[in-house]
Structures are given as C-alpha cells and as structure tokens.
C-alpha cells in the first residue's frame, strides 16, 4: 500500500477541519436554541405560588448556583472552555454535574438505540433486499404490506400494545425499568433481569424504525438489479443467488449505509417515547425533561453528545464508502 501522499494528508486534514467546523456550529446552536424558548429555570425551580414574591436578589441567587446569572457572552465563553476541559456545567434539575448525568444514561441509550438500529437494519434492510430480489411476487407484496403497517403505527401505541399483551395478559415480562430496583442476585441473575426488561422496548423501537430502512434497501436493490451489468452477469450463467448477493447487494449497500448514518442522528429523539412508556432511563427522556425545565446545561451537554454521535456516524460512513464501492475509491484518489 503506497504511503499517503502530501495531497492525501491535506485532504484528510481538510476533512477533519470540515468536521471541526460543523461541530463548532452545532455547539453554538446548542447554546443558543434552548435559550430562545420562552421561560427560564426559575419558572421550574421556584414553586409557582411563590414566584412573584421572590426578590431580584433571591432570583439571582437561585440562578447563580448554576452560573446562569452571568451575561450571555460570558456564559458562552465558559461553555466553550468548559467543553475543552470536559466540564459541562451543573444541571438545574438535579444540581449535579452534567457529565455524570450523561454518562449514567449513555449506556442505556447505547444498548437500546444501538440494538434497535442494528436489528432494524438487519431485519428491515434484509427484508427490503429480499423483496427487491423477488419482485412482483408474494414476498414483495407481503413484505411491503407488513412494513408499511408497522411504519404507520405510532411508537407509543405499539409499546402499549406489547405491554398490555406480554406484561399484562401473559405476565411474561416486567412492565417498567431497566433493572430491578433491589439488586438482583449475582451476575447471571442481573443479566437475565436486564435482558427481560430490554425485550419490549427494543422490539418496539425496532418495529418503529425498520419501515423506512426496508424501503431504502428495496428501492436501492431494485434499481441495481435493473442495470445492464446484472443482465450481463445472468447471461454469463451465474445463478440468481450469485447475481443478487455477489453483485446486486454489494452495490446497493451505499444508500443503506447513508440511511443508517442518518438513523443514528434521529433515533435518540425518537426513542424518547419508548423510554417514557417503558420507564427506560435513556438520553431521550432526559432531553425531554430538560426541555420542560429549561435546564440549559443538560440540553447543551446532551445535544453536544448527539452532535458528536452524528458526526462520528457520518465519518464512519465516509470511511466505509470507499471500502464498499471501488468507484468512490477511485474518484477520491484522482
């Protein structure tokens, strides 16, 4: 493998600079947007019966606990320097460092959301490819009908239906929580409890997200299979399976990869509803609660985390394209 040329370094450096700029813009928007919504943490921290009677000094004192009494520009500067130090401020809701709160929620979100994306891609994407490979047949019709039906149902509703059936009617699975409240026995017992509580939220989120991945995969492969080179491959005598798997799918993967990268960005928000129905302590619910309470520090931190996640996902996708599709590799090299 030839050593990367100076041009390659410049391109790489250019790309990093691009991402850094995107991150800076995202971070600044994260600072500004929550503050644009009407209301301040005071409306949340002080009981409404007493808001009008507190003095300006008391008001400032309450805000000062979270650094919110300072002028905006000063807050912005502290926010940016804080990020570089790894200090995301103190939450107005909890009074705790935001970093701790995010790190506590992150594993749950990764498990739920990561698991759901993986399953949705495998199941939805796989079904989509299958549908495209068997165009015009019953498989395609059934597949389309099933996934469009799932896609049309609101996540809240699917979640509740599953709860009522599996927890209420069959009494097979627990209704809420990520872990049992009292420490369960040992490693295996805990894993089992954790798995039991993961099943329904994971199933719900997967069903909700699989629909459009199905469509992307299906249309992408259908497009590829109508190309001339596929006709050539079939004429050469390759079996249908060899044609579809070896040639069709490989080329149809790109749009799916893009779709998955986009999924990463949107699914955390979409998981909020699922997290609420199943009382799963993930980031989505934290963001929702923080929006209600105008907890700027948590919102800034959580959106920063999401922005980094989305950027990483896109970076990964960018790196994957050349590996999957030699045409992209060649173009970049030119």
């Amino acid at each position, binding site marked *: 493998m030839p050593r990367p040329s100076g041009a390659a370094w410049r391109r790489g450096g250019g790309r990093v600079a691009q991402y850094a700029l995107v991150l800076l813009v995202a971070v600044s928007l994260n600072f500004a947007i929550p503050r644009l*919504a*009407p*209301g*301040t943490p*005071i*409306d*949340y*921290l*002080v*009981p*409404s*019966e*007493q*808001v*009008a*009677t*507190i003095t300006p000094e*008391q008001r400032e*004192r*309450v805000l*000062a*606990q*979270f650094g919110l009494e300072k002028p905006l520009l000063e807050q912005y500067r502290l926010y940016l320097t804080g990020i570089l130090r790894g200090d995301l401020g*103190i939450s*107005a*809701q*909890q*009074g*705790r460092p935001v970093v701790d*709160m995010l790190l*506590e929620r992150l594993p749950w979100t990764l498990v739920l959301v990561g698991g759901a994306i993986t399953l949705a891609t495998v199941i939805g994407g796989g079904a989509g490819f299958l549908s495209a490979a068997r165009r015009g047949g019953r498989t395609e019709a059934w597949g389309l009908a099933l996934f469009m039906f799932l896609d049309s149902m609101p996540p809240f509703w699917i979640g*509740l239906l599953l*709860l*009522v059936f599996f*927890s*209420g009617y069959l*009494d097979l699975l*627990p*209704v*809420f*929580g*990520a*872990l049992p*409240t*009292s420490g369960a026995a040992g490693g295996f017992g805990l894993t089992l409890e954790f798995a039991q509580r993961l099943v329904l939220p994971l199933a719900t989120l997967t069903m909700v997200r699989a629909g459009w991945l199905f469509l992307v995969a299906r249309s992408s492969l259908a497009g590829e299979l109508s190309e001339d080179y596929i006709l050539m491959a079939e004429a050469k005598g390759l079996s249908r399976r060899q044609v579809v798997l070896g040639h069709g799918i490989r080329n149809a993967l790109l749009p799916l990869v893009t779709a998955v990268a986009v999924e990463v960005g949107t699914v955390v928000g979409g998981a909020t509803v699922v997290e*609420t*129905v*199943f*009382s799963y*302590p993930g980031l989505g*619910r*934290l963001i929702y*609660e923080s*929006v*209600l*309470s*105008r907890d700027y520090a948590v919102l800034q931190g959580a959106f920063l985390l999401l922005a980094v996640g989305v950027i990483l996902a896109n970076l990964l996708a960018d790196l994957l394209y050349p590996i999957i599709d030699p045409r992209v590799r060649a173009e970049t090299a030119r």
Partner: protein
Amino acid sequence: MVRGALERSWRPVLVFVLGLLIVVVSSPTAGGAQQSQQVERLTIATEADKGNLTPYSFRPPPGIHSELVGLVYDTLFLHPYTEEPISWLATEASANADATVWTVTLRDGVTWHDGEEFTAEDVAFTYDYYRDGPPNRYTHHASEVPVVESAEALDATTVEFTCEQPCPTLDLVTLADLPILPQHIWEDVEDPQTYTDLPVGTGPYRLAEYVEDQSYLFEANEDYFLGPPAVGEIEMPIVPDPSSMFLALQNGQVDTATRPVPPELQESLGEARDVELVEGKRFASIFYRFNAESPPLDQQEFRRALDMAVDRQALVDTVLLGNGRAGSPSFMHPDSRWFEPQDAAFDPEQAGAILDEAGITDSDGDGSREYEGEPVSLSIIVSANDPLQIRTAELVAQQLGEVGIELVPESLDPGTLSQRQNALDFELSSFQGVPHLIGDPTQMIESLESLLVYSNPEYEGLREEWFQSTSVEQQGETMRGIQRLFVEDPPALTLYYPDTTYAYNSSAYDGWIPVEGHGIHHKWSFIPEAPELLGIETVAQRTAPPEEETGGRTILYALVVAGAVVLLVLAIFLLRRRSARGSDEDQI
C-alpha cells in the same frame, strides 16, 4: 361387671367432654382487633423524579414531594390541616397574650439518622435558614406569613419564636408544615439546590439509595422516636407513564401507585384481583386564574358573570365521570377546616343580565357579545400534558359560548406555560390547586399577592384583620369573611375538586390511612401509633367484619356456653340419681 365398669367410666368421660366444651367455647375469639402488621418490603410506584428529597429538591407537579420529604424529615407538629395541633417533634406550644411570642417544648431523646442528637439548636437554625435563604415550598412559613423575626433556642429542648405580627396559627400550621433540618449538615451548605448528598433527617425512613430517574430505596429507621415503622424497606420505582403504572399494579409488579387513579380506569382497576380503591382525601382542585389587568377581565361584574355562566356539575359529570365535587368560589378545599361553603350559582340568564347591564351586549346579533366595539374573545392557556384540563377547557368554552363569550383554549408545554403564567402573559390560565395552596390558609394569603394578584379594597381590610388576629378563632372568622367576599368577587374560577382515589394491593399491605391533604402515601401509613393519634381508621380496619356480625357471634357463643352449662348440670344431676338408685339397688 362390665356394665358396672362402663357405667362408672362414662361418667368421668362425659364430665370431661362437657368441661372441654365449655373451655373451648369460652376462650377468647381471635380476630376483631387488628394487629399492626410487620411487612418486610413494599413496592410503591411513583410518577416523577423528585430529586434527593431535601426540602429544596422540589419539582413542579405531577408527583408528590412533601410526603416523600416527610418520610425522611419530621415537623414539630403532625401536619398542617388538623383541627388541633398534634405533637410530633414538639410536645407542646404556648403563646403569649397577643400571639407574637411562642414557647415550644421539644421531645427528648430524638436522634438524626447519622446518630447526632436532635436539639432546639436545629429548630432555631432551620427557621433562620428558611427565612434568609433561597425560597422553596416551605420558606413562606418563615419569611412571609408570618415573618418569624427570631427563633431562639432557650435550652436543649425549648425554642422561643417571635413573629413580626400576631401568629396565632403558628403551632397549627407553620410548625406543622416546616421540616426540620440538621444544623450540623446544613450550616455549611451555601447553595441548597446543589446539595446532592442523601438527606439526613429524624424521620421514620432513611433514604438509602436514589438512582436518578429510576428509583428510590428507603430503609426503616429502627431508632425512630415512635418506634420502628411497620414496613422494613420501601422501594419506589419511578414510572412516568400512567398506563404502565397501573398495569404494573394489576399484574403485581408494584403494590400501590402514588398517582390518583384516573376516572376512566377506576372501574376496571377495582375489579383486578386483590386491588382495592380508597378515597385519599388529598386536596385537589382545578381553577382558572384571571388576568385582572386585561380588559374586560378588569371589571368585577364581568368576572362574576363568567363565574355564573359555568355549569360546574356538568363538568364533574362529563370530565370526571362523577368522581368529584363542583367547585365553590371559596377557593379553599371543602375538606379543609378553614372552608366556608359558598354555593357557586349556575345561572346563565343572570350572567347574561349582568353582562347586559355592564354594557357588554351582542349589538350585531351574531351570537357573540362585544366590548368596546370588539367581539369578546378570551384565550385560556392549559398544560398540553393534562388531557382532563384540556377537555374541561373545551367544555367551559362551550358553556361560555352560550352566553355569547368566546373562549379559545391554547395548550402549551409545561415549561412555556409556567413562564407565561409567571409573566402574567395570559388572559385566563388553568391551574391545578396543590394541597397546601387550597388547604393552608397562610399559603392562600400569600398567593393572593403572587399567584392570584387579587386587588379588592374590601379584601385589603380583611387581610389587615387577618394579620392582626391574635387567635385561631379570629383568623377563622376573617377567613370566612374573605370567602364570603369571594362570592361577589372571585379571585379565580374554581371549577371542581376531583376525587383523589388511590389503588393498592390489599394482600401486600393494608395499613394505609387517608389523611386530609396528603392522600395515603405518607409516613403515617407506616407508623403503628398514627391511626390512633389522628383518629383515622386504616383501610384494614374499615374492611373488618361489621358490628352486627360480631354481636351475633357473641350471642352465639353465649348460647353455646349456656347450653354446655345446662347439659353439665343435667348430667351431674342424672349421674347422682343413677348412683343413688344404684346404691339403693346395691343395698337391696
């Protein structure tokens, strides 16, 4: 020979059997008096995260906060809605002639959860801290109504309170509501809202574990001054979704839920196995706050007409499915001891007449009245998270439409709603009355400045009278006067008082007691002495066999005993005769 032996042997046997019967029958019957049960663990689902349960970790509704704080912290008197003060951390309190200086004696031998001794210093410190520090749900008791000028520890168990103005309800309300903080911990806390350690109190439970947004775990305080509580461990998972919460109760994953059962679920939930429902008597109301600076709401007649145009009973029947009471202009909750019943007259014709007189008429016959040339159209802001409030607003809009006033409900997210309410950026606003707002007279007086922005010259006089009252009776009289004033000039439109029905699994625990203003999920449900102190029955005692059955049992037992005695006497008599005859026969 055998016959003789038989004759001889069956006598003692008969006597023995009869004697046994008498003993068995007259032994004390089990059942009747309820034993206080010792339960190892209870699971209570709660609907929201309320922080680490210090008095400063307050969050807006929904959810209970002060009852959870009450598990960990104690107050000086039992609770603020009683008829007479009931001693708790304090044993007695007495005031001087004009009720400005109070001397309070504290209980001896109470310790904090960390082993330190509870003394009068802690009480004095707490009142100063609340008065001078950042506001919370309790601070108004020391900083506004009344203003506690000083709280001084005279010795280890005596505190002297001095109020700026007469404070006759200090023991009844103030000392009964305000949780006492440990001085040795809080004297170093500058910013109480960033205090995130687990709380240390004197209460019957210790908060052993708090996992944010997931659960609480309480452990019994074995050294509690009233003895160890009835439940060893309470685990409280946080379940925000109401459907999940009640589903978990139905399938036994939790033993009770702190959220009141919505009207539409009551029937089906009550039928679930082992699930019982009980009215919790927690004060609740829905009222509409007026912005009295926004015309035509600035006119008293207009507000009065609005009040008369609303059919409250219809709201209760439709929205609450009958589970509630129609609202009254009194503002205070009907179960509060300060309440004076005032009928909210539903009279749309009279309302129309008042509006006509005020010059707000329908001049162009389009069905809606005009004020100063513009059709009267009011907007009401409601929380988007509360379907009952939204539905109520829609129905009220229909009712007001009948008298020619247009009402437009606007549903907002809770954050924006709070902000607009606090900034007075609304015309009408839907509010949920929390217990201490509609049960605690001191909070109501304060809220008439801040929350309700009530300005009425006659009220000013009554308010002054309230602040000068030197006895509970005087204050009660003034409160009644204020509530009579509210009929003509309501500070808010109280629509209804919803029932607060709670569900619990009776086979898991049945020591719950409904306490006015608090519901059933509070520390007194776990303290064996509490039902007697409060004069309230537990849910178990309520479902004990009724009087007639017990009476019937007694008669039955009496009959059996009497019968056994008669049989015994008869047997002895017959045996005597037999043996007499026998000896006669022998003699022959």
